[in-house]
């Protein structure tokens, strides 16, 4: 009896392992398919003109995405400045006041803000910026993206600072260095790689966001450097062109997808290499 049951159990064990491996590899398939289609349809559309030209009207051949690339950069720059400063400050507070009541509620707020759907952030930026300013603008889009970056940067700062040994801070304080100088000159420099990683990852994430831009940055067929006017962004351009009925525009959308995915992956891989190199071990 034992021999038969143990045989059965071994077979079950093997079957289970095979199942787990099969399912795991099966869940890789979508990534491969997405990459395959993006490269197959996107790469042929890419050339130098694609990066430097403006979009053309339907019917005209060619046309590029220069305005969308510039627009995405403007949006990310507007978004990152306030959210990096505010995010790092709040992150320092959270890691230094662990266990306090304020930190508990703020931590909860950060979690909720991180889980808030991006479309809601879009509505908020519309209500807070677009309506008072009287129109769609790069500024409102930047603020929407900034609201999305904020919780990610706070989390990254908090988690990084938590890993820094307390002895480092205590040594500085014991030498009579005031608290603010200890934080600015000892703790933050030790955690800069982790915080930088968080910032770059959050940029990669919001750079691909579309929903908060639909009714803030809105999109623009022309080049625009003015922060109070609507701008185009890569994801917005992909959305507008992909849902249009023109094959010529679909070609541009595939090309733009190729560029966007390329940028996001490059940033992710860069961060991964850098964290390995910058890693401060204690």
């Amino acid at each position: 009896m034992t021999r038969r049951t143990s045989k059965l159990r071994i077979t079950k064990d093997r079957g289970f392992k095979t199942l787990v491996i099969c399912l795991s590899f099966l869940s890789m398939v979508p990534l491969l398919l997405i990459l395959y289609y993006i490269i197959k349809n996107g790469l042929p559309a890419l050339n130098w003109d694609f990066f430097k030209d403006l979009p053309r009207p339907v019917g005209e051949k060619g046309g590029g995405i220069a305005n969308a690339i510039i627009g995405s950069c403007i949006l990310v720059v507007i978004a990152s400045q306030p959210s990096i400063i505010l995010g790092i400050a709040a992150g320092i507070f959270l890691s230094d006041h662990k266990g306090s009541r304020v930190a508990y509620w703020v931590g909860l707020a950060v979690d909720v803000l991180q889980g808030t759907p991006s479309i809601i952030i879009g509505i908020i930026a519309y209500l807070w910026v677009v309506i008072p300013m009287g129109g769609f603008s790069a500024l409102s889009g930047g603020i929407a993206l900034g609201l999305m970056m904020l919780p990610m940067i706070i989390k990254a700062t908090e988690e990084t600072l938590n890993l820094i040994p307390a002895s480092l801070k205590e040594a500085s304080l014991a030498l009579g260095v005031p608290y603010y100088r200890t934080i600015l000159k000892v703790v933050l420099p030790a955690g800069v790689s982790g915080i930088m990683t968080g910032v770059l990852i959050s940029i990669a994430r919001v750079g691909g966001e579309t929903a908060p831009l639909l009714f803030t940055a809105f999109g623009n067929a022309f080049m625009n450097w003015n922060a109070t006017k609507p701008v185009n962004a890569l994801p917005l351009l992909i959305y507008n062109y992909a849902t249009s009925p023109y094959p010529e525009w679909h070609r541009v959308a595939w090309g733009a997808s190729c560029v966007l995915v390329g940028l996001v992956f490059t940033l992710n891989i860069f961060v991964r290499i850098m964290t390995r190199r910058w890693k401060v071990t204690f």
Partner: protein
Amino acid sequence: MENHSSVKIAAITRHSNQKAEFAFQKILLLSALAILILLVAIFLSLLFQSIDSLKIFGFSFVVRKTWDPVSGNFGALPFLVGTLWTSFLALLISLPFSLALAIFIGEYYKEGILHSVIKNVTDLLAGIPSIIYGFWALFVLVPIVRGFQMKFGIFPYGVGIFTASLILSVMIIPYSASISREVISLVPSDIKEAAFSLGATRQEVITKVVLPYARSGIGAGALLALGRALGETMAVTMVIGNSNLLPGSLFSPGNTMASVIANEFTEATGRLHVSSLIEVGLLLFLVTLVINIMGKYIIRKISVEA
């Protein structure tokens, strides 16, 4: 004399240090409180802007079946149903895959090439923008689903609830897999070793020791993944078909709460329409808020216990 002035300087620097110290602490506290205020302000803004619709429709907003901007008749039931169907279906489809991934990198291959390949690929999957998923689904997945529908004699929309769930499930797999893996790694190795020493096979240890122990954490991971699926906008908007009628079947086109806002907000005419859309947003905000707080609470509790 010299001594006296140096004392004075020390006193001055100490005074300015104290001032800077005080200001610094205040700035940190204020930036932390700003986040809390921000969240409350978001809630209040949504609430006040949806007051028109709240006044006219009251609680019946969530059970009324018609959404008709022309006659000014707004009910959110079709979107509630659409959101629930797509998210739960997506969760159901993704669950076996994300569990398998978590077991794969958390139990079978804790290191080595296979581990890093699978882990990096899942991380990359999580990093792809949702617009790319939507675009790909619209041009690749929709024709495939349409082909199946033709074969089985269902009206070949291609787009619809089912297609949206499929792409959603692909999007949430990496998310719930990474949470499940973390929870699985918290299972103490001595109870696993105890089971092994009694002669249990790998499969028995995983299904009878690890998974039951990590049950609540895996549930929390699924909950957080559900929260993400509920609020996902772009990919769903592109493949769900954007119909404001109550979806009749799994394959019929519909709309989710997020997708109806994305579609109609810029074209909304009249205050009531805008206000109704914002009320849909308010509902979505509250639902994701509750789900996130619950999920995070469970995860936090487990990490403290372990």
